[in-house]
């Protein structure tokens, strides 16, 4: 199996690296690469025309599937075409921004509407287009009740999303990325608010949009600052920017003082953008609410693709993040906190779609933690595996929801496995849950392990590793809580109140709900999914299982990294990432410490990982890998070690901040090799979690609503209730942000009304008041005016007389 898939994937992955070892330059890419976004926007146009001509068939869905399938095929062709020796490729469609105001550096702003294609791009686009195609097919059936009403609108936004995502991932500069970033945000807004007559959907759409604005502001500011500081926002120029390379070198030497503050803040600002889009801790609140959208949307946008844009941004901008003293530690910690928090909330929810949403937030936290502990490989791998199994999980949930009239409460569904026609859904759910729980030898197991192990071996981050392990236990528990409650146990089903389709625009379940009402609840018959859903679920199930293989194939390549170093890679994701800008650090090799202890000689294999393909670094200079960071050892006297995200010089061999650097890295000082140990530990933890779920939610359960957990929960005091209410984070935000804003708004309103307007009105009132006193004198009678003149003349003459009299008296 491994050899077979290796053979297949060898043709897809990169060819052998060039031996020269020089930094690779960008080359001109094939123009047909533009077909990827082009086909998506073509699909959007077709859907627009369908809407204009009032097509009332499933035509737009099938055309969308065709277009997106074409985009996927193009991506695969691009992968085949990609010349690893040639480095990144650029495809420029047209000059978009070209502003010049001087000859000096940084005095021109160019941002072509163009694409930057390297392995990271292709890697991301492969699963984006592939999943989009599958989910479009799924949606063609799922959305069938909207044919003729919202069908065209749905698929228009769907296509536009894929186009935007293509711009985001493939864009050759940060302006393109920003275009895509806002585009996916817009499509997300449109699709969450798809049932625009439903208040909760509208509120959720607004929430998602507004929370994302906060992140987008950070991204925009980071973009500006990047241009101001580096003078370019084009990837090709940026990654060969001497300033940036100097910063990275300084960062690797632990000398962050050399890097100006401005250069370090860029990463923090970009990070805020990533947090917003990828639903990290302070800004995660929009994602669970985004489940108001149709389930295919949740699967594609809010689980598999869009939310990984933040991971992509950090991976793409990894050199910039390396150059910041604080960015990566913050990313790591925020990711960890998010993972834990979302898992605790997920354990207490009853809505299966929301559980999946919180698990998405949690898994995104894993990815960020992976980035933060300097393993973009692990993060990217987890993105890929998660995309498959989370899309699968969501689609299964959608199928359940579709079939049970919008029923999502796990207390009201049970034993779906035993119902007729639900086998494929159940198997798909099982596979997805196993992946998410991280059962050994599933894709999720390997990808999660990569991150956790890396956390353990990074000095100062062991706490993160522990937290992530605890989170893994929770993940396994709440995942199988869903599975055991909904798919196993006694057969029971109550139709939902169709809360995803309250009106004529309801996505699917309206008819079923009414049917149920007419015939009584006992006569409710769930309808099993049709061919399209089943096909998609089957494909995704297989893909989720097959993703495991990616851990075993595609490795052991001698890959030239972006910086021109040669590394041997372990697995497919690593191979893909290692070629890209995310590979400013070379892959983990904890045994590099052994190298460090030697006299900087040739790389030495320390084959202790137990996994095929130890990485190996062979460059001209003696180099060591410490905690995944490539360090050039100058002679033997200096070593570096990563502590709290900083590379610190460890003067003198064998000593370092952690004490003796000669100790091999191990898990919490136990002497175990981290990866090897992690296989056992996380495997045990996953099974413990599943076992707990079995004990509390399946064993001895006779009804859908009651289980052993209820008794436990009642003893835990208010904790389950607090967790179910999401730790009151939304309420906290309301109180801390929304209420003060409303209060300030009202205060401003009254200030404006009373003080500002009052002042203006006072200026108007005073003349009016004085005029009111004078006005009666203007009687309109001619005589009045004449009498006034008479009196005036008399007064004047009197004055003159008085003056004359006084003058006469004086003289």
């Amino acid at each position, binding site marked *: 199996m491994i050899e077979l898939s290796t053979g297949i994937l060898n043709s897809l992955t990169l060819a052998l690296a060039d031996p020269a070892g020089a930094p690779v330059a960008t080359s001109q890419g094939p123009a047909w690469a533009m077909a990827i976004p082009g086909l998506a926007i073509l699909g959007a146009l077709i859907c627009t025309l369908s809407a204009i001509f009032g097509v009332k068939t499933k035509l737009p869905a099938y055309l969308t599937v065709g277009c997106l399938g074409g985009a996927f095929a193009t991506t695969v062709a691009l992968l085949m075409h990609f010349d690893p020796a040639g480095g990144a490729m650029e495809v420029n469609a047209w000059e978009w921004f070209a502003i010049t105001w001087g000859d000096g550096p940084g005095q021109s702003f160019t941002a072509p509407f163009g694409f930057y294609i390297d392995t990271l791009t292709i890697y991301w686009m492969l699963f984006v287009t592939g999943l989009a195609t599958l989910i479009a097919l799924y949606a063609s059936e799922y959305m069938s009740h909207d044919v003729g009403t919202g069908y065209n609108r749905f698929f228009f936004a769907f296509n536009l999303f894929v186009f935007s995502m293509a711009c985001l991932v493939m864009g050759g500069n940060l302006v393109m990325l920003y275009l895509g970033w806002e585009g996916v945000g817009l499509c997300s807004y449109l699709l969450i608010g798809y049932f625009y007559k439903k208040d909760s959907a509208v509120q959720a759409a607004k929430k998602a949009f507004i929370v994302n604005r906060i992140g987008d502001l950070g991204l925009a500011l980071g973009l500006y600052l990047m241009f101001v500081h580096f003078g370019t926002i084009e990837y090709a120029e940026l990654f060969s920017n001497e300033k940036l390379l100097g910063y990275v070198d300084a960062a690797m030497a632990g000398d962050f003082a050399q890097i100006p503050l401005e250069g370090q803040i860029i990463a923090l600002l970009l990070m805020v953008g990533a947090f917003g889009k990828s639903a990290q801790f302070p800004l995660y609140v929009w994602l669970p609410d985004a489940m108001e959208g149709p389930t295919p949307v949740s699967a594609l946008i809010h689980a598999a693709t869009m939310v990984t844009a933040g991971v992509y941004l950090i991976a793409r901008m990894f050199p910039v993040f390396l150059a910041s003293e604080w960015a990566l530690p913050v990313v790591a910690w925020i990711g960890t906190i998010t993972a834990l928090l979302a898992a605790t909330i997920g354990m207490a929810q009853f809505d299966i779609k929301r559980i999946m949403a919180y698990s998405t937030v949690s898994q995104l936290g894993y990815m960020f933690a992976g980035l933060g502990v300097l393993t973009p490989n692990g993060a990217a791998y987890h993105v890929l595996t998660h995309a498959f199994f989370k899309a699968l999980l969501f689609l299964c949930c959608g199928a359940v929801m579709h079939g049970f009239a919008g029923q999502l409460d796990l207390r009201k569904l049970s034993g779906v496995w035993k119902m007729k026609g639900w086998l494929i859904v159940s198997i798909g759910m099982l596979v997805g849950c196993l992946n998410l729980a991280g059962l050994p030898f599933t894709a999720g197991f390997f990808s999660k392990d990569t991150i956790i192990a890396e956390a353990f071996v990074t000095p100062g981050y062991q706490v993160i590793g522990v937290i992530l392990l605890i989170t893994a236990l929770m993940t396994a528990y709440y995942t199988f809580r869903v599975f055991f409650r909904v798919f196993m146990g006694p057969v029971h089903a109550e139709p939902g109140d169709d809360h995803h389709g309250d009106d004529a625009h309801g996505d699917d379940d309206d008819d079923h709900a009414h049917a149920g009402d007419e015939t009584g609840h006992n006569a409710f018959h769930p309808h099993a999914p049709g061919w399209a859903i089943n096909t998609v679920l089957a494909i995704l199930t297989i893909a989720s299982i097959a993703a495991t293989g990616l851990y075993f194939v595609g490795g052991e390549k001698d890959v030239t990294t972006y910086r021109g170093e040669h590394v041997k890679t372990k697995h497919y994701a690593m191979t893909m990432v290692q070629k890209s800008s995310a590979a400013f650090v070379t892959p983990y090799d904890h045994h590099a410490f052994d190298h460090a202890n030697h006299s900087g000689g040739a790389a030495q294999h320390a084959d202790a990982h137990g996994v095929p393909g130890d990485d190996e670094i062979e460059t001209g200079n003696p180099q060591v890998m410490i905690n995944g960071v490539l360090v050039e050892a100058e002679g033997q006297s200096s070593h570096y070690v990563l502590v709290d995200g900083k590379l610190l010089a460890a003067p003198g061999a064998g000593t370092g901040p952690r004490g003796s650097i000669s100790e091999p890295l191990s898990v919490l000082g136990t002497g175990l090799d981290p990866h090897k140990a992690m296989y056992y530990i996380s495997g045990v933890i996953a099974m413990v979690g599943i076992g707990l779920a079995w004990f509390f939610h399946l064993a001895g359960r006779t009804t859908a609503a009651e289980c052993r957990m209820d008794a436990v929960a009642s003893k835990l005091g208010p904790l389950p209730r607090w967790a179910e209410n999401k730790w009151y984070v939304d309420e906290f935000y309301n109180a801390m942000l929304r209420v003060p804003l409303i209060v300030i708004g009202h205060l401003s309103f009254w200030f404006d009304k009373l003080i500002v307007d009052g002042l203006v009105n006072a200026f108007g009132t005073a003349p009016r008041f004085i005029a009111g006193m004078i006005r009666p004198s203007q009687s309109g009678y001619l*005589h009045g005016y004449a*009498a006034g003149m*008479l*009196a005036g*003349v*008399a007064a004047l*003459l*009197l004055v*003159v*007389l008085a003056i*004359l009299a006084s003058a006469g008296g004086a003289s």
Partner: protein
Amino acid sequence: MATIIHPLALYLACALGAIGVALALPRPRISPAIFGGILAAAGAGLVVVLLGFAGGVEQLPNWAFYVFSAMALGGGLRMITHPRPVYSALYFILTIIASAGLLLILSAEFMAFALIIIYAGAILITYLFVIMLATQAPEEGDLEHLADYDTKGREPWAMSAAGFVLLGILTTMLFRGAGELPVPEPVDDTPVLAQLPLKVERELRIERVPAGGGEPFVLLGEDERLQREIAPDGDVLGRLAHEGRTFFTEDGRAIELPDDMRANNVEQVGINLLRDHPMTIEIAGVLLLMAMLGATVLARKQVELEESLKARQAKRLHDARTEREGLD
């Protein structure tokens, strides 16, 4: 001022005048116009007589002035107090004629007659036309009917008091100034005569033939005297050359004007008007033209009557007809 008239006497007279005018102003019922008139006349007469005493008793009072001023003020009083507009206008004519008399005493003959011609002849006739036009014809058998706004003055007491206070102040000032005015310098009218060569030559010939031996002469013009030194020939044009009241003939003789030979008022006004203020005549012409055009445009304007007014007019016509038929 005390040299002219005693202030208390002046103010007393003003008060009398005020009471008189207030009494004389039209009232709806009984109008003590006669008493008022007498009172007002007494006030005015008091001032005038006292002024006459101030001028010196040895000088006989100029009866013409007193007659004319009495006519003018009396006419004015009656004009403002008469309830019938037509009579008011007629009294105003009387006032104008009296004013013309006053101007005659002031040796302003041209102005006096111009006043009568323009005011009494033209303007007042226009007024009369408009009064006839704009006053409703009295109903048959009700000749005494007057419009309400004609029979009722507005605040006669207060306004009279105010007006006569103003008169007191005004006269105080005027008398004060008039008493202090310097005695005017004698003015030579020879320059005016020098502008009238034909008149001077004709008069001189008439006067001088018996006196100067009947020799013909031609007076020397100012230009010619200048030209004589430059160019000997020239016509008699423009101003005559003179030194004081001595004029020169072409053959070099000097002729002294007789004392009784003077430029009369019309000549003087004409010269003043045409020589000193030619532009103002043009402006006055434009003003009159504009007034004529404006009056034409305004008077031709069609009036859109309001509905209520139309109804009122129709009702009045109807009432009049039924009344007439009823009478028949």
